[in-house]
């Protein structure tokens, strides 16, 4: 069971690098949505001994939300904004890929310093979480285009979700669903703002957002 889970986490980490290296927006969204689906499967694998409807619901909501709904929204926004050319990022693709790889290695090294419970030992959840958070940061900082930044933010949240799996047995459902709800609402709000920026600036290139500075 641990091997299956680690394989999924390894795949998610690979998708991080894919997201960093993909120069085209559709493939970035694809990587993110695939990662979301992987994350949705994880609670089922982790708790396969005592499955119940709550877990199933969470898994279903995650897969539907992170894997289907949000990517569809982003794709629609992308089509509406008519982004067909590649916008050069602040941090180039090769440097961001190298940063991501360095981040992944650092995540593995860092997680050695954090002790785990015996039942979590040998799981890649912590390095996977740190690597995803770092990937999200690189995308947030390095990309110049609003939808890519949103993807970065979502990958960052995926990392936090990975970490949250460690607490799956102890956190009550109320908190989890509240968190899921907030994330969903957050994405909707972001989507609306992306739409408004598109209308106000006629572009989603955030390099045009430079009126406010000292």
């Amino acid at each position, binding site marked *: 069971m641990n091997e299956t889970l680690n394989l999924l986490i390894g795949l998610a980490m690979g998708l991080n*690098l894919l997201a960093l*290296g993909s*120069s085209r927006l559709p493939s970035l969204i694809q990587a993110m949505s695939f990662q979301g689906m992987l994350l949705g499967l994880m609670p089922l694998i982790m708790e396969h001994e005592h499955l119940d409807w709550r877990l199933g619901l969470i898994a279903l909501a995650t897969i539907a939300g992170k894997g289907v709904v949000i990517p569809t929204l982003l794709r629609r926004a992308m089509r509406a904004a008519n982004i067909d050319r590649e916008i050069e990022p602040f941090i180039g*693709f*090769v440097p961001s*890929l*190298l940063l991501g*790889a360095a981040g*992944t*290695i650092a995540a*593995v090294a860092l997680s050695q310093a954090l002790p785990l419970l015996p039942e979590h030992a040998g799981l890649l959840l912590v390095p996977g979480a740190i690597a995803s958070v770092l990937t999200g940061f690189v995308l947030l900082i390095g990309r110049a285009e609003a939808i890519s930044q949103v993807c970065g933010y979502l990958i960052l949240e995926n990392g936090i979700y990975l970490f949250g799996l460690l607490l799956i047995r102890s956190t009550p459902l109320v908190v989890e669903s509240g968190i899921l709800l907030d994330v969903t609402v957050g994405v909707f709000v972001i989507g609306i703002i992306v739409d408004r920026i598109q209308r106000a600036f006629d572009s989603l290139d955030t390099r045009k957002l430079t009126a406010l500075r000292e």
Partner: protein
Amino acid sequence: MMLMLDLILRLVLWLLLAPLLPGVINRVKAWVAGRRGPPVLQLYYDLARLWQKGVVMSTLASPGFVAGPAVAWVALTGAALLMPLGPAGAAFSFRGDVLMLIYLLALARFCTAWAAMETGSAFEGMGAAREVSYAVLAEAAIITAVLSLSVQTGSVSLVSMLAPSAGAGAVLLAAGLFTVLLAENCRVPFDDPNTHLELTMIHEVMVLDHSGPPLAVILHGASMKLLLFAVLLVQAVLPMGDMSPLAATGALAGGVLAVMIGVGLIESLLARLAFRRVPLLLTTAFLLCLFALLVAWKGNRV
């Protein structure tokens, strides 16, 4: 006497089998496209035809124009002799021969670029510049791959490095080495061997001004390089040492064939990358090999 016989047999095997590979790739491409395509032995005919032709030389060119391809071919043949062949082992094997292999490949590349620059044409110079700048990244990847094999087995000799499988990182290593194979042999998505537009060529543009026997040598050398990389890839991934000699030979042949079919499929299904994206893919190959190295390193310690 046995040694001599072994050596000659090996040479014949490498030299004769190599030109088969581009034929296999072309066959796969033709099959995917639904065409009849050229015969599998086309490169043999080409080589025979070229060998009978005369050489046209630029007035600017020094003897390096002819010497370059010759030295490159010899270097590649030497590299081929270092490469073990499944149960048969290598013709020459010593500690650190893997470094020798890398340097021989680099020497071959240097000579090709040198010969290209001899023509004094702007196009050849451009091709040489591209080839060398991509090679920097590809070499980083292949050195990392070799390092990961070496860490995995604790050895620096090709025969013992390639005998076991690459362990847990085998998938990563396979993907990385395959990408390097595509880049080093100028296949799609790095370069298009069929292109006829000088501005978009990499390798082909370097050999534009060669003709006759030097061109034949270059083409033959390229096919040997392809075979060399395919053999390296298959042996790095498959646990050759654990198989019976017959099975290992079969696995090697089958593996090389599979790699060629993979190259053919990629060539049919993918488009060539834009130049500025090539470093990105090569960096990916490097990272794949790097993670294979980390897995090998970590796996050994646990």
